[in-house]
Protein backbone atom coordinates (compact mmCIF):
# COMPACT_ATOMS: atom_id res chain seq x y z
CA UNK A 1 0.00 0.00 0.00
CA UNK A 2 1.16 3.47 -0.76
CA UNK A 3 0.73 6.96 0.53
CA UNK A 4 1.62 10.25 -1.07
CA UNK A 5 2.35 13.23 1.15
CA UNK A 6 2.30 16.77 -0.20
CA UNK A 7 4.24 19.29 1.89
CA UNK A 8 3.78 22.99 1.14
CA UNK A 9 4.89 26.18 2.86
CA UNK A 10 1.89 27.63 4.70
CA UNK A 11 0.06 30.58 3.23
CA UNK A 12 1.72 33.73 4.49
CA UNK A 13 5.18 32.15 4.65
CA UNK A 14 7.44 33.69 2.02
CA UNK A 15 8.46 31.17 -0.63
CA UNK A 16 11.54 32.67 -2.29
CA UNK A 17 12.03 29.61 -4.52
CA UNK A 18 8.48 29.86 -5.82
CA UNK A 19 9.03 33.58 -6.43
CA UNK A 20 12.22 32.85 -8.40
CA UNK A 21 10.35 30.30 -10.52
CA UNK A 22 7.60 32.85 -11.15
CA UNK A 23 10.16 35.41 -12.31
CA UNK A 24 11.83 32.84 -14.58
CA UNK A 25 8.49 31.88 -16.13
CA UNK A 26 7.79 35.57 -16.71
CA UNK A 27 11.18 35.98 -18.39
CA UNK A 28 10.28 33.10 -20.72
CA UNK A 29 7.18 34.96 -21.83
CA UNK A 30 4.60 33.08 -19.72
CA UNK A 31 2.92 36.28 -18.69
CA UNK A 32 -0.25 34.76 -17.22
CA UNK A 33 1.46 33.32 -14.12
CA UNK A 34 0.38 35.28 -11.07
CA UNK A 35 1.97 33.16 -8.37
CA UNK A 36 4.09 30.06 -7.82
CA UNK A 37 4.39 28.02 -4.64
CA UNK A 38 6.91 25.22 -4.54
CA UNK A 39 6.57 22.18 -2.29
CA UNK A 40 7.58 18.56 -1.87
CA UNK A 41 5.98 15.26 -2.72
CA UNK A 42 6.98 12.28 -0.57
CA UNK A 43 5.90 8.78 -1.64
CA UNK A 44 5.74 6.13 1.06
CA UNK A 45 5.61 2.37 0.50
CA UNK A 46 3.75 1.01 3.49
CA UNK A 47 3.22 -2.43 4.92
CA UNK A 48 -0.33 -3.81 5.02
CA UNK A 49 -2.29 -2.45 7.93
CA UNK A 50 -0.69 1.00 7.95
CA UNK A 51 -3.32 3.67 8.37
CA UNK A 52 -3.72 7.29 7.47
CA UNK A 53 -3.34 8.03 11.18
CA UNK A 54 0.15 6.51 11.01
CA UNK A 55 1.04 8.77 8.10
CA UNK A 56 -0.39 11.78 9.92
CA UNK A 57 1.90 10.98 12.87
CA UNK A 58 4.87 10.76 10.47
CA UNK A 59 3.99 14.17 9.05
CA UNK A 60 3.63 15.75 12.47
CA UNK A 61 6.89 14.27 13.79
CA UNK A 62 9.19 14.50 10.80
CA UNK A 63 7.93 14.91 7.24
CA UNK A 64 6.58 18.45 7.73
CA UNK A 65 7.66 21.25 10.04
CA UNK A 66 4.27 22.52 11.05
CA UNK A 67 5.70 25.86 12.12
CA UNK A 68 6.13 26.73 8.45
CA UNK A 69 4.60 23.89 6.43
CA UNK A 70 1.21 22.31 5.86
CA UNK A 71 0.71 18.81 4.53
CA UNK A 72 -1.93 16.67 2.88
CA UNK A 73 -2.06 12.89 2.57
CA UNK A 74 -3.39 10.69 -0.23
CA UNK A 75 -3.75 7.01 0.61
CA UNK A 76 -3.77 4.60 -2.35
Amino acid at each position, binding site marked *: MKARVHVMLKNG*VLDPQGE*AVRHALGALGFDKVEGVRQGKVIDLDLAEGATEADVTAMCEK*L*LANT*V*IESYSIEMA
Partner: protein
Amino acid sequence: MKAAVVVFPGSNCDRDLAVAFEQAGFDVSMVWHKDSALPEGVDIVGVPGGFSYGDYLRCGAIAAQSPICKAVIDHADRGGYAIGVCNGFQILTETGVLPGALLRNAGLKYICRTVNLKVATSESVFTQGYNAGDVIGVPIAHHDGNYFADTETIKALHDQDRVAFTYEENPNGSVADIAGILSENRRVLGMMPHPERAADEGHGGTDGAAVFRALAGMVTAA
Protein backbone atom coordinates in the same frame (compact mmCIF):
# COMPACT_ATOMS: atom_id res chain seq x y z
CA MET B 1 33.59 23.68 33.67
CA LYS B 2 32.57 21.09 31.13
CA ALA B 3 31.27 21.63 27.63
CA ALA B 4 30.09 18.99 25.19
CA VAL B 5 30.03 19.59 21.44
CA VAL B 6 27.74 17.37 19.41
CA VAL B 7 29.12 15.94 16.16
CA PHE B 8 26.74 14.89 13.41
CA PRO B 9 27.69 13.46 10.04
CA GLY B 10 28.13 16.68 8.05
CA SER B 11 28.97 18.96 11.00
CA ASN B 12 31.83 21.24 10.00
CA CYS B 13 32.08 23.83 12.78
CA ASP B 14 32.34 21.33 15.64
CA ARG B 15 36.07 21.80 16.13
CA ASP B 16 35.85 25.59 15.85
CA LEU B 17 33.20 25.56 18.57
CA ALA B 18 35.32 23.21 20.73
CA VAL B 19 38.37 25.51 20.40
CA ALA B 20 36.29 28.56 21.35
CA PHE B 21 35.06 26.74 24.48
CA GLU B 22 38.60 25.58 25.30
CA GLN B 23 40.02 29.07 24.96
CA ALA B 24 37.40 30.27 27.42
CA GLY B 25 38.57 27.62 29.90
CA PHE B 26 36.16 24.72 29.37
CA ASP B 27 37.04 21.03 29.29
CA VAL B 28 35.43 19.95 26.05
CA SER B 29 34.23 16.53 25.04
CA MET B 30 32.98 15.70 21.57
CA VAL B 31 29.78 13.70 21.55
CA TRP B 32 28.77 11.52 18.59
CA HIS B 33 25.25 11.72 17.17
CA LYS B 34 24.60 8.05 17.94
CA ASP B 35 25.41 8.47 21.63
CA SER B 36 22.27 8.49 23.70
CA ALA B 37 23.64 10.38 26.71
CA LEU B 38 25.75 13.44 27.39
CA PRO B 39 28.90 12.99 29.52
CA GLU B 40 28.34 13.28 33.28
CA GLY B 41 28.40 16.80 34.66
CA VAL B 42 28.20 18.71 31.38
CA ASP B 43 27.53 22.39 32.06
CA ILE B 44 26.81 23.47 28.50
CA VAL B 45 26.11 21.75 25.19
CA GLY B 46 27.23 23.21 21.87
CA VAL B 47 25.30 22.26 18.75
CA PRO B 48 27.61 23.22 15.88
CA GLY B 49 27.21 24.51 12.37
CA GLY B 50 27.49 22.44 9.24
CA PHE B 51 25.20 20.36 7.10
CA SER B 52 24.04 17.59 9.41
CA TYR B 53 22.78 14.60 7.41
CA GLY B 54 23.31 16.57 4.20
CA ASP B 55 20.42 18.93 5.04
CA TYR B 56 18.10 16.18 3.76
CA LEU B 57 14.36 16.84 4.10
CA ARG B 58 14.94 20.18 5.90
CA CYS B 59 18.03 21.66 7.52
CA GLY B 60 18.35 20.03 10.94
CA ALA B 61 15.25 17.84 10.58
CA ILE B 62 17.04 14.48 10.66
CA ALA B 63 19.55 15.59 13.31
CA ALA B 64 16.64 16.61 15.53
CA GLN B 65 15.54 12.95 15.59
CA SER B 66 19.00 11.54 16.44
CA PRO B 67 19.65 9.76 19.76
CA ILE B 68 21.93 12.51 21.08
CA CYS B 69 19.31 15.17 20.38
CA LYS B 70 16.91 13.45 22.78
CA ALA B 71 19.62 13.84 25.43
CA VAL B 72 20.11 17.50 24.44
CA ILE B 73 16.36 18.14 24.72
CA ASP B 74 16.30 16.48 28.16
CA HIS B 75 19.29 18.61 29.20
CA ALA B 76 17.48 21.78 28.10
CA ASP B 77 14.25 20.65 29.76
CA ARG B 78 16.15 20.21 33.04
CA GLY B 79 17.30 23.81 32.75
CA GLY B 80 20.71 23.03 31.25
CA TYR B 81 22.60 25.53 29.10
CA ALA B 82 23.02 25.11 25.35
CA ILE B 83 24.16 27.13 22.37
CA GLY B 84 23.27 26.27 18.78
CA VAL B 85 25.09 28.04 15.98
CA CYS B 86 23.94 28.08 12.35
CA ASN B 87 22.91 24.46 11.64
CA GLY B 88 22.82 24.08 15.42
CA PHE B 89 20.18 26.84 15.57
CA GLN B 90 18.22 25.09 12.82
CA ILE B 91 18.41 21.83 14.80
CA LEU B 92 17.24 23.49 18.03
CA THR B 93 14.21 24.95 16.23
CA GLU B 94 13.45 21.56 14.66
CA THR B 95 13.51 19.94 18.12
CA GLY B 96 11.18 22.62 19.46
CA VAL B 97 13.72 23.73 22.11
CA LEU B 98 13.60 27.15 20.42
CA PRO B 99 10.56 28.60 18.60
CA GLY B 100 10.28 29.39 14.90
CA ALA B 101 12.07 27.99 11.87
CA LEU B 102 14.82 28.93 9.42
CA LEU B 103 13.71 29.32 5.81
CA ARG B 104 15.70 29.63 2.60
CA ASN B 105 17.42 33.05 2.39
CA ALA B 106 15.10 35.58 0.76
CA GLY B 107 17.70 36.25 -1.95
CA LEU B 108 18.07 32.48 -2.53
CA LYS B 109 21.86 32.70 -2.36
CA TYR B 110 24.24 31.12 0.09
CA ILE B 111 25.83 34.04 1.95
CA CYS B 112 29.31 33.83 3.47
CA ARG B 113 30.64 37.10 4.87
CA THR B 114 31.09 39.07 8.05
CA VAL B 115 28.03 41.06 9.05
CA ASN B 116 27.34 43.61 11.75
CA LEU B 117 25.11 42.43 14.55
CA LYS B 118 23.49 44.51 17.21
CA VAL B 119 23.44 43.02 20.71
CA ALA B 120 19.73 43.28 21.49
CA THR B 121 19.98 42.27 25.14
CA SER B 122 22.80 41.80 27.62
CA GLU B 123 20.47 39.94 29.96
CA SER B 124 21.72 36.39 29.40
CA VAL B 125 24.82 34.40 30.24
CA PHE B 126 25.67 34.47 26.54
CA THR B 127 25.41 38.21 25.98
CA GLN B 128 26.33 39.66 29.38
CA GLY B 129 29.84 40.38 28.08
CA TYR B 130 28.38 43.05 25.81
CA ASN B 131 26.28 46.12 26.37
CA ALA B 132 22.86 46.17 24.76
CA GLY B 133 23.24 48.21 21.58
CA ASP B 134 26.85 47.17 20.94
CA VAL B 135 27.56 46.43 17.28
CA ILE B 136 29.85 43.48 16.63
CA GLY B 137 31.27 41.92 13.45
CA VAL B 138 30.56 38.19 13.18
CA PRO B 139 30.64 35.92 10.10
CA ILE B 140 27.55 34.31 8.64
CA ALA B 141 27.70 31.32 6.31
CA HIS B 142 24.28 29.95 5.45
CA HIS B 143 21.70 29.27 2.77
CA ASP B 144 18.77 28.84 5.13
CA GLY B 145 19.06 31.57 7.73
CA ASN B 146 15.83 33.41 7.13
CA TYR B 147 14.25 33.34 10.60
CA PHE B 148 10.51 32.93 10.58
CA ALA B 149 7.94 32.70 13.34
CA ASP B 150 4.29 33.74 13.51
CA THR B 151 3.45 37.22 14.73
CA GLU B 152 2.45 36.03 18.21
CA THR B 153 5.79 34.29 18.68
CA ILE B 154 7.70 37.34 17.49
CA LYS B 155 5.72 39.53 19.86
CA ALA B 156 6.48 37.14 22.75
CA LEU B 157 10.20 37.17 21.86
CA HIS B 158 10.21 40.97 21.94
CA ASP B 159 8.01 41.28 25.04
CA GLN B 160 10.20 38.83 26.96
CA ASP B 161 13.46 40.42 25.75
CA ARG B 162 14.46 37.14 24.12
CA VAL B 163 15.95 38.51 20.91
CA ALA B 164 19.69 38.18 21.53
CA PHE B 165 21.11 39.63 18.30
CA THR B 166 19.72 41.46 15.29
CA TYR B 167 21.27 42.18 11.91
CA GLU B 168 22.22 45.79 11.28
CA GLU B 169 21.51 45.16 7.57
CA ASN B 170 19.22 42.20 7.09
CA PRO B 171 21.06 39.79 4.77
CA ASN B 172 18.53 36.96 4.52
CA GLY B 173 14.98 38.20 5.05
CA SER B 174 14.70 37.23 8.72
CA VAL B 175 11.59 38.55 10.44
CA ALA B 176 12.39 41.64 12.55
CA ASP B 177 16.09 41.33 11.53
CA ILE B 178 16.45 38.51 14.06
CA ALA B 179 19.86 36.81 14.08
CA GLY B 180 19.66 34.98 17.40
CA ILE B 181 17.11 34.20 20.11
CA LEU B 182 16.97 32.91 23.67
CA SER B 183 14.77 30.23 25.20
CA GLU B 184 12.14 31.23 27.71
CA ASN B 185 14.49 30.47 30.64
CA ARG B 186 17.29 32.34 28.77
CA ARG B 187 19.61 29.33 29.05
CA VAL B 188 19.51 28.27 25.41
CA LEU B 189 20.80 30.54 22.64
CA GLY B 190 20.33 29.87 18.95
CA MET B 191 21.97 32.13 16.38
CA MET B 192 22.80 31.95 12.67
CA PRO B 193 26.06 33.99 12.82
CA HIS B 194 29.21 32.21 14.01
CA PRO B 195 30.74 33.73 17.18
CA GLU B 196 33.22 30.82 17.27
CA ARG B 197 34.63 32.07 13.97
CA ALA B 198 35.34 35.48 15.49
CA ALA B 199 36.98 34.28 18.70
CA ASP B 200 40.71 34.31 17.91
CA GLU B 201 43.14 36.90 16.48
CA GLY B 202 43.78 34.46 13.63
CA HIS B 203 40.15 34.73 12.56
CA GLY B 204 40.59 38.39 11.68
CA GLY B 205 38.29 39.51 14.49
CA THR B 206 37.48 38.61 18.08
CA ASP B 207 34.07 40.20 18.51
CA GLY B 208 32.49 36.79 19.16
CA ALA B 209 34.89 35.74 21.92
CA ALA B 210 32.89 37.56 24.60
CA VAL B 211 30.08 35.03 24.18
CA PHE B 212 32.38 32.23 25.35
CA ARG B 213 34.28 34.30 27.92
CA ALA B 214 31.00 35.34 29.51
CA LEU B 215 29.89 31.72 29.78
CA ALA B 216 32.98 30.71 31.71
CA GLY B 217 32.17 30.41 35.38
CA MET B 218 28.52 31.30 34.89
CA VAL B 219 27.04 28.03 33.74
CA THR B 220 26.34 25.11 36.02
CA ALA B 221 25.39 21.54 35.27
CA ALA B 222 21.71 20.69 35.28
